[in-house]
């Protein structure tokens, strides 16, 4: 299992558009990936789930990946959410 503690940088937090990009990236890994905010846990491959965290800019999240490619997945997603400009 790999965990990364991150603080959300994009202004839009994890709203529809950034969530969709995040999900797309998450789906490219086989690992089971969770995003945890406070006591709420969301499936990183579900934008509905992610959006229901209501995660805003500046919120602290934990990204937890478990599986074959857990390290690469955790790194890539942590980087994505700490970039100032989410890639279009």
């Amino acid at each position, binding site marked *: 299992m790999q965990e990364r503690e991150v603080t959300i940088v994009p*202004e*839009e937090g994890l*709203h*529809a*558009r950034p*969530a*969709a990009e995040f*999900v*797309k990236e998450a789906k490219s890994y086989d690992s089971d990936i969770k995003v945890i905010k406070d006591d709420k846990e969301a*499936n990183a*491959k*579900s*934008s*509905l*789930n992610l*959006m*229901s965290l*209501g995660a*805003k800019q500046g919120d602290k999240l934990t990204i937890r990946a478990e599986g074959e490619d857990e390290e690469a997945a955790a790194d890539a997603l942590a980087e994505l959410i700490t970039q100032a400009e989410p890639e*279009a």
Partner: protein
Amino acid sequence: MVEKKAGEALRMEGVAASEGVAVGPVFVHDAGELEPDRTSISEEEVEDEIKRFEEAVQAVVPKLSETAEKMREQGNEDEAAIFDAHTELAQDPELADGVAERVKNLESPESAILAVGEEYAQMFANMEDEYMAARADDVRDVARQIAAEVMGESASGLEFLDEPSVVLAHSLAPSDTARVPKGMALGFVTAEGSKTSHVSIMARSMAIPAVVGVGSTLEEAFEAETVAINGGEGYAIADPDEDTISDIEKREKELEEERKELEEYKHVEARTSDGRRIEVSANLGSAAEAEDALEWGAEGVGLFRTEFLFMERDELPTEDEQYEVYREVAEAFGEKPVIFRTLDVGGDKDLPGVEQPVEENPFLGWRGIRMCLEIPELFKPQLKALLRSAAHGNVKIMFPMIVNAEEVRQAKELIEECRGELEDAGTEFGAVDVGVMVETPAAAICASDLAKEVAFFSVGTNDLVQYTLAADRGNERLRHLQGADHPAVLDLIGKTCEAAEEAGIWVGVCGEAAADPGLVPRLIELGVKELSMSAPSIPKAKKVVSET
């Protein structure tokens, strides 16, 4: 009401909102509630029904991603992003799990997807974060499309229109008309609306016929196969007989000839028979319309509505983003003047990131310049973007909803501030003329005070009529009170022209009246120097001017 029998012709009378005629298949855009066919299923159907749901998702996903692609090709990046997000939502694993669980409890898949979608929608709506609250509609939209697919109904989304059709709808929002693929709408027939509602304005700028405000008769036409529409005379006929069709086709030819005849007026400078120069310009709502407008013979832009930049998005447009759009329009028109109206919204439209109170009368509320002056962080980026675009063309800035000279002075001070800041930052900007909309009786009556502050007036007749006659421009029962030919309105326009003449500034008209052949000669007599209208009306207006 008499029930329409299948195949029998049904006549619908409404407002002649946009000229032209057409006959074509019916496309019903029904934004009403979608009811599941079945609520429950039996134990042995569970597996098949889950599969049915999965197949529906498989069918919806490519449609959504194709729409995103199409939007992207048309340069519509914001719309494309919305459909990207919808594509992702449709194949969301949590959505599928939620549906599967309900189906296992013997709920029908169509009922399950609507229910799960609604659960998430409610959750988002309750988040007290306005961006997230807006996502509630995204989830509902996607859930409805999947449910419709499960039930074997075609989703009624206008973006899926793939055969040229006459669109029937209770009402059409700007986002609805924007989603219609080019060339696919032959005409619009709506139950609600008036000549100045959005669908009418859009139809005229797209040069397709529209009849609006036909009332509840419309519903009887939902089952019809074809509809004939005559937008110039304000009627539509469902399941028309042979005679009607040949009448419409004959009219189509006549209109085609009239268009050809008007062709020669397109690119002439408009002058009255005694040689007075009248500028005939276009009203635009987006940069994409600029080329079309020039082709119709626009001698400038008399009204560029900047609201479209601010609508239906998650955040306010940045100064740079606005600058790109304004510059594109300014460059397209070169030396020809382009008048940008600064943001004019109120409580009737959502503005991302701006806390708007719920108001009983948004048209008499905190809107337009009233809002902008109180939120410099909203107003200044727009003013700076406009000043910067002025380095690339003949840009003029116009303020809406003005009722006194103090508002104009405050707005001009903000422009000064913006100039200073641009200068300090070493950013290139150009000179602009500043003008105001005359759309309140107060502005017309105080025109001589206002004239001291500005370089031009533009009379917005739609609102001036609404405010002068106390008649809501969207209220179909008040159609007889929506004309600019009321003596009170003409008197106010006359006063505005007199004050302008005295101060040595010019007056334009940018409402519906500017394109009304019956009114144009009156407006010119009163002293109006510029007429601005939806682009397809320009050739005819030039002809009317030349005969005045």
